């Protein structure tokens, strides 16, 4: 005696089809939600926590920098900033603090005194003393050396710079030895520890 196959109605077939679609949908949703959530957590874990810390640092007494004079300021990280005074009003607008980081791809420019220019050795960028690019890829892109925010409080000049330090102390000392840039008072380590809000 042969066994007959079970009789299935059209409604049963439709119900099975719907069940199959729903179960696949739930399975796909679960997988996407589960692994997607994990991927999001992993991505957020790898993404840096926030921008690097910055603070206002003391540079010099305004009266100690004559109009037309320039000075060197060394950030807590050791990076050098060239600060020049161009006016005599006694405000922050008198000063410009040029970064030594090339705007092209982030190398450090250095001052070539005999040519009166900043030069970036990575891709041959050349900058005027005021930071305007005149040769190389930065000039083609119309770039200039960036400047740091400055402010004057009670006759004292302050600069806003990153405080994260990567360079070892001996590197900073060594860099100071072979420096032909204009010398200046630099930053005051005692004042630099003050809370910026107190300034």
């Amino acid at each position: 005696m042969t066994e007959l196959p079970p009789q299935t109605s059209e409604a049963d077939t439709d119900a099975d089809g719907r069940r199959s679609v729903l179960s696949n949908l739930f399975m796909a949703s679960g997988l996407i939600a589960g692994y997607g959530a994990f991927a999001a957590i992993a991505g957020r874990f790898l993404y840096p926590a926030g921008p690097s810390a910055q603070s206002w640092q003391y540079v010099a007494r305004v009266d100690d920098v004559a109009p037309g004079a320039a000075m060197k300021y060394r950030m807590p990280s050791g990076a050098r900033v060239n600060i020049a005074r161009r006016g005599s009003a006694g405000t922050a607008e008198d000063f410009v603090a040029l970064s030594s980081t090339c705007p092209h791809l982030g190398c450090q420019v250095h001052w070539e005194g005999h040519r009166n220019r900043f030069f970036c050795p990575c891709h041959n960028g050349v900058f005027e003393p005021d930071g305007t690019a005149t040769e190389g890829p930065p000039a083609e892109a119309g770039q200039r050396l960036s400047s740091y925010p400055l402010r004057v409080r009670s006759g004292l000049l302050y600069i806003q710079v990153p405080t994260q330090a990567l360079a070892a102390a001996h590197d900073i000392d060594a860099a100071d030895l072979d420096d032909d840039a204009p010398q200046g008072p630099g930053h005051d380590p005692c004042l630099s520890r003050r809370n910026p809000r107190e300034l």
Partner: protein
Amino acid sequence: MASLSTWLRDRIPVSGDALRELTNEPVPNHLKRWWLCLGGTPAYLFVVQIITGILLAFYYEASPSTAYESVHYITNEAAYGWFLRSVHKWGATLMVAAVILHQMRVYFTGAYRRPRELNWMIGMCLLVCTLMMGFTGYSLVYEQLSFWGATVGANIADTVPGIGTFIKQMMLGGDAYNERTLSRFYVIHAAVLPAATVLLLFIHITLIRLQGITEFPDADSANNSKPRYFNFFPDHMYTELIIGLVLMILLSALATILPATMGPRADPLTTPEVIKPEWFLYVTFRWLKLFAGTFAVLSMGFIVFVMFAWPFIDGWIRRRWPASEASVWIGIFGVLTIIGLTVWEGLVAH
């Protein structure tokens, strides 16, 4: 012995004949010439890199305060450290060269054409992985070249419109090179890229196995009874073993005669007066000097895209102009341009 064989067969139910059938790929006769066997060379060198890399990892410390000193220890104090580091360095150099030569062979013999378009693209991914392993590798030494190479590389990514800053921050672990940057490069170099390379190699070789090796018109065997194939095992295996042996001798000789040295320690405050990346990045370095930032980066991205999509572009050209030899001339132009820019960058200080 028979009982051991039975014991093994019970637990690994694969017959010798089935295994032979599975592995014994028919190899076209042209692969008897060693210069047409360049595909196995980077794979062999990759294995050398994994072994020497694991050994170097026993002493390497990925932190700005310790990385340079740990590499100094490996180079100057650890027993045979100088040799293993030198083999790793020269292995990387030869691997990049072998991948490029293999790709050139595939290009000029038209082996990327239908149905092998996808395998060409996987090969391009392997080329990118190899170059990135080279780049992240020399970034780990924490010498001047390492620091400024990483800085420039991250800032190149930064110039990509839209997602550039995100890529830079993910590369560096911050806005600029910081205490956490080196460990990222280390993980990418020693875990992420090798894992990706193993996966891609598996797919690459599987596709070669499924599609077979490209056959060339062979005047000798077309009209006579000579076989057009020979066996992978043991004939081709011996060829690969000999190539491996020659490579090991070459690597040992290079490592001994021209051992890996160390430049000055990274100084984040001073970019050296003369700075250049490794030779395989000279072409991009010169390109970046010739053109302004965003255009230079986007044009390089476009060239890489064209290389990825070349089998399809070539197919379109050949459908439109069936008799043209455009791919050959474009290839010659591309190779000469790359060689020209590389030599130019190599010969001048700036």
